């Protein structure tokens, strides 16, 4: 039963990946203009005749469309994203250089938003309908409406420029020669503001999920039983309520990973942070189409992975979901 469901789910994700790849294949060929230029990402005039012949040959522009499609599919699935004719380097290399930075931001932000969202959510639910709860709830709804890139700009203006607490851009101090701990501190100082901004993007959702989940646990029979047994409030909160209320939060967190990954596009742009999101922005402004496409596929893969993680995690955490 569950295996059939998992199979179906996997099939669905495979379909999404296929659609993303197909979009990548179709867009440059559907647009008006020379497909060669759209595939290469530079004006045809800027390419040497050898390069032109090489692209034509590799992509198979003189072959029938279905043949081209299969070639493209094969390349992508074997991890060959092609060559950036603008940057003069293989795209896979460019991506590998950027990926760690984006992972650093995304994972740290996820940890921060989990911690803050869960704690505040639990407090709000525990004291629900109090003034504190109302302030938190409304604050989160307002926070959810603010553009994240704008918050990033404000943080730079206040914490980096006015107060000078953090550097305003980049991932490391260029040519600093830092080693060991000094280097780690430098990386952390650079990541602080982007991580804060990215966390604020996810905290409201985690908070609202946790608060709702806690509220439904509050009315549960086993809590009343625990109370009747005379267990202290604190122990009920920590041992009985939070573990039970955490279940939906874990799913939300796994899904937020994919979302935060996409959110890095604007945030890395604001902080000039050398990650994948910034790469997509640079590729878009430089019309470097192959790089843009490769980054897009990576983002798709990240979202799918986080969905898979959520599917895999849930039945392991909740025995009821396994029985169903």
């Amino acid at each position, binding site marked *: 039963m569950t295996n059939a469901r998992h199979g179906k789910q996997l099939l669905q994700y495979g379909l999404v990946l296929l659609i993303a790849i197909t979009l990548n294949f179709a867009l*440059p060929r559907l647009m008006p203009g020379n497909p060669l230029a759209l595939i290469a990402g530079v004006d045809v005039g800027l390419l040497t005749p050898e390069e032109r012949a090489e692209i034509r040959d590799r992509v198979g522009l003189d072959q029938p469309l279905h043949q081209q499609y299969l070639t493209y599919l094969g390349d992508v699935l074997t991890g060959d994203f092609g060559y950036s004719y603008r940057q003069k380097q293989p795209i896979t290399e460019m991506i590998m250089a950027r990926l760690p930075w984006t992972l650093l931001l995304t994972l740290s932000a996820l940890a921060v938003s989990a911690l803050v969202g869960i704690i505040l959510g639990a407090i709000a639910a525990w004291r629900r309908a109090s003034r504190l709860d109302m302030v938190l709830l409304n604050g989160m709804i307002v926070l959810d409406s603010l553009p994240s890139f704008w918050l990033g700009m404000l943080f730079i203006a206040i914490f980096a420029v006015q107060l000078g607490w953090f550097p305003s851009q980049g991932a490391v101090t260029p040519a600093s020669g830092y080693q060991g701990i000094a280097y780690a501190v430098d990386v952390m100082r650079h990541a602080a503001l982007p991580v804060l901004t990215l966390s604020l993007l996810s905290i409201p959702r985690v908070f609202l999920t946790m608060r709702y989940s806690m509220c439904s646990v509050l009315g549960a029979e086993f809590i009343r039983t625990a109370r009747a047994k005379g267990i202290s409030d604190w122990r009920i909160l920590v041992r009985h309520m939070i573990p039970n209320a955490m279940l939906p939060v874990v799913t939300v967190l796994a899904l937020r990973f994919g979302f935060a990954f996409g959110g890095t596009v604007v945030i890395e742009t604001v902080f000039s942070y050398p990650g994948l999101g910034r790469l997509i922005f640079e590729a878009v402004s430089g019309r470097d189409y192959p790089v*843009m496409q490769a980054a897009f596929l990576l983002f798709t893969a990240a979202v799918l992975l986080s969905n898979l993680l959520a599917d895999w995690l849930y039945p392991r955490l909740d025995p009821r979901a396994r029985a169903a």
Partner: protein
Amino acid sequence: MVSPTQAQTQARTIARPAQRRQPRATSRRLRVTATQLTAAVGVTLVTLLILIAVFAPFIAPYDPAERVGRPFSPPSAEHALGTNDIGHDILSELIFGARISLAVGLTAGLITVVIGTTVGLLAGYFPRLGSILMRFTDVVLVLPFLPLLIILAAYLGRSLMNTVLIIGLLIWASTARLIRSQVMVISSQDFVLAARSLGATHRHIIIRHVLPQVMLLSIGEFVQVVGQAILLEASLSFLGLGDPLQKSWGTVLYWAQVRGAFLSPAWAWWVLPPGLLIGLATLGFALIGFTLEQRFNPRLRQR
């Protein structure tokens, strides 16, 4: 699988039950006023912004596309929010920008709700077609939203029409899901069977009986989606993918970013106001949507 709109709906759903689980009479009265307050704040914000957009030429002190002062001037008696890098009056830019941002939000919201409601109606009413449509809907839900938006905008070119279309075509999926589940409940009721046995066509039943019942839900969705669309338009324009000739609030922020306004004192008048406007617009629509949903979403009512 959480797209912004879906997540927001989820957030509303989540925010609701706790507030109503209030046994004491005083807090119940408090809750009613709180809901009314929420609605009032939302309506006030949205009305105000729409009025600014409509009467922009009368309110704005200058033509937003004309060089009316020295570039990079700080706020003064002539220019309440200073001027930008090419001497345009920032306040006038923001007042006229309301037109673009709201127009994109409203049109994209309309497209979203029309697609979402149509897909939801068909999928909910015809189960077999529904499972195929929902498969497709799930694909749209899972695709990484912002990167896809950017890719499409980059290929299709920067114009207002493209921005509207891309946003509208990408965010309908959660609306479709919501409408579908509602239609499934409605069309399993006896009166549909009765109408069928009296010889009513599917088309007649959908348009005359089912659609009117999900209409209010669609309107609630519309209002919420508008807020999301405004936020998305801002992100796109901020990345330099908006219409270069039609300056929205996001475009103002784009230029502020490109010219490094946030590295100088200029952030206080060049960066702060446009972001606040985007936030207020999004919040205003979200609050109205929240109130409407509480009223019209049967799922929330019965809980």
